[in-house]
C-alpha cells in the first residue's frame, strides 16, 4: 500500500478528477472540431503529463496514438528545455521528434502553478490535410517524407501568452482547406485550455504537493499491476511472425518478427523488420511504440484509466535504425499508423499467444481505405478528407464470443466512429450508395470473426480524386486457437471501380479519378475467427445464414454445415456430420 504520505481516499478522488479532465478535453475536441476526421471519426487523443514528463493519464481514444505520445512529449520538452514558459503553446507533428505520421498534429500546453511547471495537457488529432503534392497526405508515389507534406518540428504557437500569428499563417498557407485546418487547430487549443483549467482547480483544492504525490503513487500502482500480470506468464522467450503483404510497392511480402522475453515481472519486446523502403509504409520509432503497446494491451486486457507506469517494466527494441519498424529520415511514412503497424501488432499478439494462450483473441481486419478530394460546386470550394467509414473492418473473435461486426480496424480497436452518411453527403459532394456488412467476410471459427464493411461512393457532379491506402487485400485477418477459413476471397479487402458497367478490382494502393456516374466500392476485411470452425454450433451457423452473414456455400466450406434449402434453412445432418468428420 501507499509508500508516500498519500491518503488512499484522496488518491481515488484525484484519479477521478484526472479522468473527468481528460473526458472534458475529449468532449471539447469532438464537439468543436471542423474536419470530419476529428469530429465524426474521433481520430484524436488527449493525454495529461506531469512535469518529468511522464504520461499520467491517457483516455480511451485511438490506440494508434497510445504509445507515440509518450516519446513525442519527451522529445518536445527536451527540444525547448530551459525555455518553457507560462503561456507557451507548442505544436509538432514530425516523426523525427517522436510523432506518428505528419498528418497527426499534436498540441502541447505547459501548465504552470505558482510559477512552476507542473503538468502538460496534450492532444493529438488527424487533420484532413498537411500540404504536399497529394490531398489528405497519403501519397503512394512518395519516395521521401518530403513528398508527403509539411514536417513541423516542435514550434511555439504562443510565446509567453502571445499568439504567433505569423507562424500560424505560415502553416495554414501550406495546407488545403485552410478553414477546416484552422478550426481544428482552435479545437486542439480549446481542449488543452479546458484541461489546464481543471488541473489548476484540482491543485487549488488539494494543494500541489498532495496532487503530485497522488500522481506519483498512481504511476507506481499501474507499474505494480503490469508487473503482476507479466509475472503470471512463465519466464521464457516467445516469438511471433506476421506477414505484411505487398500492397503495390513491388518489393514483395515482408516478415515482421516480434520476440517477447519474459523475465520475472518484466518483459522485453524486440522487433525485427526488413530495411526501410521508398514507399509510404515505413514506421518511425514513436509510431512503432503504439503498435507494440497495442499488442501488449490485447494480452493485458486492462480496463481504463491508463498511465505510463504500465510500461515501466516493458522495454522495447525496434531494431536497427533504417528498418521498416524503426525508420529514419527521409523514409516516407504516411501510411504507418495502419500499415505496417497492424502487422507489427499481430506479430506481438502472436508472441503473446505463445506466452499466454488463455488470453488470446484473434486479429482484427486491417485498414484498407481511401481518401477523397475534389471541388465542391455547391459552395465553390475545395474539399479533402480521409474517409473513416472506408476503413471499418470486422473485429477478431475471442474465446467467449463472436467478433463485433464493423468495429475495426485493428489499429483503432473500436475507438473510431465512421460518421453519419447524411452528414458526409452534406459535407462533401458525394453519394454513398452502400454502407453495409458483407456476406462471408467474418473469419471462420468456433467463434466467428466480425463482418467487414463495404463503402460505395459516387461523386455528385465533379470528378473526384480517390487515393487508397493500407493492405489486407490478399492476406485475411489471422485467426486464433486454430481458426482457419476455407473461403478466403470474401474475407479480404479490395477496391472495386465500376465504369460503364465494367468493374475493375484493385488490390494495390492507387490514385484514381472517379467521374460522376462511376462508382468506387471500398471493401474492408472481416475479423479473424477463434477456434476450429467445424466445432461451431450448427444452430449459430444457421442463424448466420438466415441473417445473410454466411452464404450456403460458406456454411458448407467454412463450417462443414450442409443446408439444403435457403427458405426453410433445414440442415442435412448426415452430410454435415460426414463433412465435419473429414
Amino acid at each position: 500500500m501507499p509508500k508516500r504520505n498519500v491518503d488512499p481516499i484522496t488518491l481515488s478522488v484525484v484519479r477521478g478528477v484526472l479522468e473527468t479532465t481528460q473526458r472534458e478535453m475529449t468532449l471539447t475536441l469532438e464537439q468543436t472540431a471542423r474536419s470530419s476526421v476529428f469530429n465524426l471519426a474521433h481520430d484524436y487523443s488527449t493525454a495529461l503529463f506531469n512535469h518529468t514528463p511522464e504520461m499520467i493519464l491517457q483516455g480511451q481514444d485511438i490506440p494508434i496514438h497510445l504509445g507515440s505520445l509518450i516519446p513525442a512529449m519527451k522529445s518536445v520538452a527536451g527540444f525547448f528545455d530551459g525555455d518553457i514558459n507560462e503561456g507557451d503553446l507548442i505544436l509538432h507533428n514530425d516523426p523525427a521528434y517522436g510523432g506518428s505520421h505528419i498528418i497527426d498534429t499534436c498540441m502541447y500546453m505547459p501548465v504552470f502553478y505558482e510559477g512552476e511547471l507542473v503538468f502538460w495537457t496534450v492532444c493529438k488529432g488527424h487533420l484532413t490535410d498537411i500540404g504536399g503534392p497529394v490531398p489528405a497526405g497519403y501519397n503512394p508515389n512518395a519516395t521521401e517524407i518530403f513528398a508527403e507534406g509539411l514536417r513541423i518540428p516542435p514550434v511555439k504557437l504562443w510565446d509567453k501568452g502571445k499568439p504567433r500569428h505569423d507562424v500560424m499563417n505560415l502553416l495554414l498557407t501550406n495546407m488545403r482547406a485552410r478553414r477546416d485546418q484552422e478550426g481544428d487547430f482552435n479545437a486542439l487549443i480549446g481542449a488543452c485550455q479546458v484541461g489546464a483549467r481543471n488541473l489548476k482547480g484540482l491543485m487549488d483544492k488539494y494543494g500541489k504537493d498532495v496532487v503530485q504525490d497522488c500522481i506519483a503513487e498512481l504511476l507506481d500502482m499501474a507499474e505494480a499491476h503490469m508487473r503482476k500480470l507479466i509475472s503470471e506468464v512463465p519466464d521464457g522467450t516467445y516469438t511471433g511472425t506476421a506477414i505484411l503483404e505487398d500492397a503495390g510497392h513491388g518489393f514483395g511480402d515482408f516478415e515482421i518478427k516480434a520476440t517477447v522475453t519474459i523475465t520475472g515481472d518484466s518483459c522485453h519486446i524486440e522487433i525485427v523488420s526488413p530495411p526501410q523502403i521508398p514507399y509510404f509504409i515505413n514506421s518511425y520509432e514513436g509510431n512503432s511504440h503504439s503498435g507494440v503497446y497495442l499488442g501488449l494491451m490485447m494480452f493485458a486486457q486492462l480496463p481504463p484509466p491508463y498511465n505510463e507506469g504500465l510500461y515501466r517494466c516493458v522495454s522495447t527494441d525496434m531494431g536497427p535504425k533504417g528498418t521498416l519498424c524503426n525508420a529514419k529520415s527521409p523514409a516516407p511514412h504516411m501510411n504507418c499508423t495502419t500499415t505496417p503497424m497492424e502487422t507489427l501488432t499481430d506479430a506481438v499478439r502472436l508472441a503473446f499467444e505463445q506466452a499466454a494462450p488463455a488470453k488470446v483473441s484473434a486479429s482484427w481486419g486491417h485498414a484498407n481505405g481511401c481518401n477523397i478530394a475534389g471541388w465542391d460546386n455547391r459552395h465553390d470550394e475545395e474539399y479533402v478528407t480521409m474517409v473513416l467509414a472506408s476503413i471499418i473492418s470486422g473485429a477478431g473473435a475471442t474465446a467467449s464470443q463472436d467478433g463485433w461486426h464493423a468495429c475495426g480496424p485493428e489499429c483503432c480497436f473500436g475507438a473510431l466512429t465512421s460518421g453519419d452518411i447524411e452528414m458526409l453527403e452534406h459535407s462533401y459532394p458525394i453519394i454513398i450508395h452502400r454502407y453495409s456488412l458483407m456476406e462471408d467476410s467474418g473469419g471462420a471459427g468456433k467463434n466467428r470473426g466480425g463482418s467487414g464493411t463495404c463503402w460505395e461512393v459516387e461523386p455528385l457532379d465533379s470528378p473526384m480524386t480517390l487515393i487508397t491506402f493500407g493492405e489486407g487485400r490478399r492476406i485475411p485477418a489471422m485467426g486464433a486457437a486454430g481458426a482457419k477459413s476455407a473461403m478466403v476471397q470474401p474475407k479480404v479487402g479490395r477496391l472495386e471501380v465500376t465504369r460503364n458497367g465494367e468493374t475493375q478490382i484493385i488490390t494495390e494502393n492507387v490514385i484514381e479519378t472517379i467521374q460522376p456516374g462511376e462508382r468506387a466500392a471500398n471493401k474492408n476485411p472481416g475479423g479473424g475467427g477463434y477456434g476450429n470452425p467445424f466445432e461451431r454450433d450448427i444452430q449459430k451457423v444457421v442463424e448466420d445464414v438466415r441473417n445473410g452473414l454466411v452464404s450456403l456455400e460458406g456454411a458448407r466450406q467454412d463450417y462443414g454445415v450442409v443446408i439444403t434449402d435457403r427458405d426453410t434453412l433445414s440442415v442435412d445432418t448426415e452430410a454435415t456430420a460426414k463433412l465435419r468428420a473429414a
Partner: protein
Amino acid sequence: MQNQYRLGIDAGGTFTDFILADRKGGVRIFKVLSTPTDPTMAIRNGLKLIEEETGLSPETIVSNSDLCINGTTVGLNALITHNGAKTGLIATKGHEDSIEIRLGHKEDGYRYDPEYPPATMLVPRYLRRGVSERVLSNGTVHTALNEEEVREACRHFLREGVESVSISFVWSVLHPEHELRAGEIVREMMPHVRLTIGSQLYPQVREYTRTSTAIVNAYLAPILQRYVEAVDAYFQSLGARHPVRYFQSNGGLALGKVVTDQSVYAINSGPASAPQAALWLGEPWAMKDIITVDMGGTSFDITLTRDGRANVSKNIDFLRYRIGIPMIQVETLGAGGGSIGWIDSMGLMQMGPQSAGSEPGPASYDQGGERPTTTDANLILGYLNPDGLVGGRLPLNVEKARKAIKTHLADPLGISVEKAAFGMFTIVNNNMVNAIRRVSVERGYDPRDFVLNCAGGATAAHITALAREMGIRKVLISKLASGLCAFGQIISDVKYNYMAPAPVRLEGAEAAARLDGLFNQLESRGTEDLKSDGFTDDNISVRRSLDMRYVGQVHECTVDVEPFEVTEAALARLKAAFHARHEELYTYSEPQSAVEVVNVESAITGAVDKPGRMEIAPGKGAHAALKGTREMIFNADGIAHETPVYDGALLGAGDRITGPAVIQEVTTTIVIEPGWLAELDASGVYLLSQHEAHAARVLADAVTEDA
C-alpha cells in the same frame, strides 16, 4: 363546481408511487409494489390502498379529478429486457445495416475487454429489407421508389409474423414522399401492424439516428398501445371526465394516442419530471437555476434547469440504442444506497457501480449481504438511525456494517473502520460530483451558480456534502423529496415537440424566409393540435431551438431562442446567440466564421392549472423538535462528535437548525454538516444555506482562485 383532486401514478422498477393532491395544498403519497407482468394491476392495487387509507373510492377520486396522470415504465422495461414487438425495417437499398454498424464504434470503457458483447439487435438482419429508391442531399430524387420491392418486403414480413414495421430512407427528411408511399403500401398489405415512418417521427438530418429512433419506436409501439388501451378503458370505467395523460421523457404530458404513435417519447419519463418539480419548489424564492439530484437504492439521477428551462439531450445512446428525439437530459450514475465499496485491481478504493440492490441489500440489512455499501458507511458515520429506516420498519445492524467495512476495505487499506467509512462517503460523493459536471460544466454552466435540490429517499444524507464539494451555497429539500418525481408529473404541462430539417447557411433573405416559414408551419401545427385538445391561445406557449454550427463543424450546438420573426436583419441575433453559446461551452467562439443551421424545433406547451401549495403552521422553535443526540463523524479524521437529532414532523414554519445536526423525516434522513443552516419554509421545503463564517471562507477561496 371545480374538480377536487389531481391523481398522479408513477410506475417505477420496484414501486409504483401514487400522488393525490387537492386544491387546498394537501398532498399525500402512497406506494404499492409494481407489477411488471400486468402493469395495470398496480394501478388497481394502489387505488384500493388509497380507499383503505382515506375512504375515498376509486370512482370518487377519478370522477372528481381534473387530471389523472400516468408515468409508465412499460416501454423502458421492454427495451431493457428486449421484449418488444417483432419488428421489420424497410430501408434504402445499401443502407439496411446502419443500425448494426452503429457508426463502427465500440463504447468507451471496454476497449480491450474481450467479453463485452455487441448490442442486441432490435431488428435482426433478416427482417431488414432494402428497397431501390434514393433522394440526394439537396432533396432531389436520384432513384424512384420501387414499389414492387416494398410489396416483396411486406410479403416477407407477413411470412415471418412481423407485428410492427418501421420505414426509414436516406434523406427522407428532405423528400418524405417515398417513405409515405411505402407506408401506404404497408398499410394496404399489412393493415394490422403498427407503422413507424422515420421522417414523420423524427424529421431531422442524420440517417443512423433517425433509423434507430424509428426502430425503437416500432419495437415499443404495440406494447404501449396495449397498455394505453387497458389504462384508458379502466379509467373510463371509473367515470373519468378527462382523458388520462401520460408523462413523456421530454418532460411534458401527452394524450394516450400520442404515446401510442410516438412510443419512443415514453421511454425514460420517470426522472424527467424532476426539473418541473424543482422549479415549483424554488418558485417562492424565484430560483430558476437548479440542479436536482435523486439517489435511490442503485442509481443516482441528475437533471438541471437554467433560467427556468431544463437541459435537453438529443441524439444520445440510451441503453445502447441511438435515440434522436429531445428528452430531458438525465445523467444516471450507478451510485446509490446499495452501491458496493471495493478495491480495484490497481489497489484503489472504488464505490459502485455494482450494487447490493434490495436483495441481499447492504450488510446492515442483515439479509445475507456481506459487502460494504453506502448505507453501511452512513450507518457507521452515525447519519442513519440504527433503530431503522422508514420509521423503524427496517432495523439496521451496526455490527454487520462494521464487519463488512473492516473485512473488505479498512483492513486491506490499513485504516480504521471509521476512516474507511468516511472514505466511502467521500468517494461516492466525488463520483456524484463528477457526474454532476456532465449536466453543468459540460453544458457550459458553473455549478456554483446553482441551487441544489434533493430528491429520492437516500439523497438527503449526502446533500450538504455534495453542495460543499461543488461550491454550491443553497440547498432545497422538500418534505415530499422521496416522491418528488411523481409529484413533478402532476404539476407538469402538456408538451409536444415539432421538428424540421433546415440545412441552410445563416446568410441572406432567402435563408431567413425559409427559417421563418418553417417555424410558423411547425407552430401552427402544434397550436392546432393543442387547441383541438381544449387549450387556448392564453395557455399555449412556444419555445424555439436551432441546431447550429460553424460551417465545417459536424457537431451542432443547440441554441434556445424566444419566438421572433426571422428576417434577414434578425439573422444577426441568431448568430450572436450561437457565438455566445459556443463560447460558454468550449471556451472560444469565431465571430468571423460562417454559421449554418441543420435542424430546427419548436416545443409547444399547453399550460395546466397547478394545485395549491402545502401550508405549514409557524413553529415554536427547533428545540421543541429535539429528540436526542447521536455520535456522528464529519471529518476524515474519523473522530465522532455528539450531534443533535430532530424530528421533522414536529418542526414548524420558520424553525431553524444549525449544523451539525440530523433531521429525521419519515421517508428520509437529512444530514446537515457543520457550517450549514436549515430553515423550514411554510411551503414544506427546507432551505439550507451556508453560515456566514463558512461563507467567508468559501469567498476567500474564490478570491484566491481569481488571483
